[in-house]
């Protein structure tokens, strides 16, 4: 079968199930298997299993690369806003990003704009202390937009290179919470036009991951995605469809709970892990 330029049903089913198991979802799994059918036909005879897997990995990494990475901005200070549903790793990612840019010699300020959840501000403050990076915060229950504003204003006043603002987790189907986030962005833009907005996704998310990207992209000018907890067994397969349909690039990947456990996105490595 593999030797005659035809993808036999067993091989096709095997591929499809591996992709579904990796959370690509049935539609993307079917499309990718169809891509491989076409590829096999064009490849003619003598294809071995490894080559097929390689071709699949290449196809997936091409899809992942199809989203344009936003151009570097010259704005001072740069502003990054971290958003996403509850528990995905936003606060930890904000700290990791702060550490990363701080190590590059940048002067960073953090904004604790999660004014809702118990001990959210304390959590970010502890990271700030560990990194010797100031954290702007207000009282619990304060308007998150006010904290965001204060953070950007402080970054401007103190000649910082970058402000990184953490927000509260929120489910995308809660209109009032999404409106709250839109207000945060509007208020930041009163001070600075360019805001890098990163949506943080948990690698173990299922098909809802696509809905999350859709909804957050509808509400906000998303710059890109961060996929966390890829040090686990989950493969974040939904990312393939999310990137293909919504054209948002994955910029970073979280691979642990430590401050150094954030790496720039590598499409080939991600694709390889997906089909392994």
């Amino acid at each position, binding site marked *: 079968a593999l030797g005659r330029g035809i993808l036999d049903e067993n091989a096709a089913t095997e591929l499809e*199930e591996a992709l*579904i*198991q*990796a*959370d690509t*979802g*049935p*539609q993307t799994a079917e499309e990718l298997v169809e891509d491989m059918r076409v590829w096999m036909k064009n490849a003619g005879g003598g294809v071995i299993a490894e080559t097929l897997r390689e071709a699949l990995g290449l196809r997936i990494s091409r899809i992942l690369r199809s989203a344009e990475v936003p151009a570097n901005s010259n704005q001072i200070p740069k502003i990054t806003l971290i958003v996403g*549903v*509850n*528990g*995905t*790793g936003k606060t930890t990612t904000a700290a990791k990003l702060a550490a990363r840019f701080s190590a590059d010699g940048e002067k960073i300020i953090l904004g604790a704009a999660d004014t*809702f*959840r*118990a*001990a959210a501000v*304390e*959590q970010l*403050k*502890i*990271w700030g202390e560990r990194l010797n990076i100031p954290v702007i915060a207000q009282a619990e229950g304060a308007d998150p937009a006010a904290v965001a504003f204060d953070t950007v204003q402080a970054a401007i006043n103190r000649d910082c290179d970058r402000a990184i603002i953490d927000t509260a987790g929120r*489910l*995308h*189907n*809660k209109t009032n919470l999404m409106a709250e986030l839109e207000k945060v962005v509007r208020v930041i833009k009163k001070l600075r036009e360019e805001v890098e907005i990163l949506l943080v996704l*948990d690698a*173990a*998310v*299922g*098909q*809802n*991951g696509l*809905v999350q990207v859709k909804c957050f992209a509808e509400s906000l000018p998303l710059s890109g995605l961060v996929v966390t*907890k890829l*040090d*686990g*067994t*989950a493969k974040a*397969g*939904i990312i393939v469809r999310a990137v293909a349909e919504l054209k948002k690039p994955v910029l970073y990947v979280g691979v642990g*709970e430590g401050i150094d456990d954030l790496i720039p996105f590598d499409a080939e490595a991600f694709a390889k892990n997906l089909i392994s």
Partner: protein
Amino acid sequence: ALTERLNRAFRDLSGYGKITPENIEPALREIKLALLEADVHFKVVKEFLSLVRERSNGKEVLDSITPAQQFVKIVHDELTKVLGGESAVAEAASNTAGIYFLCGLQGSGKTTAAAKLAHLFGNAALAALDLQRPAAVEQLKVLAERIGAKFIPPQFPNDARRSAAHIRDIFPSLECKHLIVDTAGRLQIDDELMNELKDVHEIINPSETVMVLDAMTGQEAVKVAEAFRARIGLNSIFLSKTDGDSKGGAALSIRFITGIPIKWIGTGETPQAVEQFHPDRFAGRILG
């Protein structure tokens, strides 16, 4: 919704939408897609489809003038059965006095679930055993204060095992009916942390071990539950963040494959946002 998709599948078959065991396949395919898109584990989908195939060869569908509706009813019934039927509600409602031990992946909602159970049961003490996450102890402390539950902070902030022993030893003196222990999130493949979990679980010797699972979890859910169960045993699942719009197929998958019942669902961020799990309502959600 699935009913419309099934209507179309049946209409395509013949003028009257009358079905036979042969042309039931397009309808089964629609169900397969719906379940996979709902995050039901693909192995569970396979087995579930054969259950449905068997039942749909019966008179109730073959003689029905509204086969699509009949079909949906069968699927809904079978899903409800898988999710535990009526017994699941009774199981959850028991809320017997004892020691509840919460575990699960990072960010699944354990600390919040601990407060929810404390609030639901009443007369509960909350014990903090997450010594790793910044401000985790503070988070549980604040929640405990909000709901008027007693709070046990870690006696040895650098030693989970000794802190666990302290919790076990001090609980009787608190005169609370329930003890709810919150632990640190961990990956099921992290050997060191899974060993730590096993040790503290042994020390605390809980009456109920609960895995907190995020309702938006995908295909990995079964693997995760099986790993936690293998290490410390699991009595129940607390399904969190069901106020989102994910279908929650992960919960169905765990119940189907491991038999572990889902007993509670989290329906929001506050300690009050918790309910007993109802299989039939959840079946509707998966199909919706």
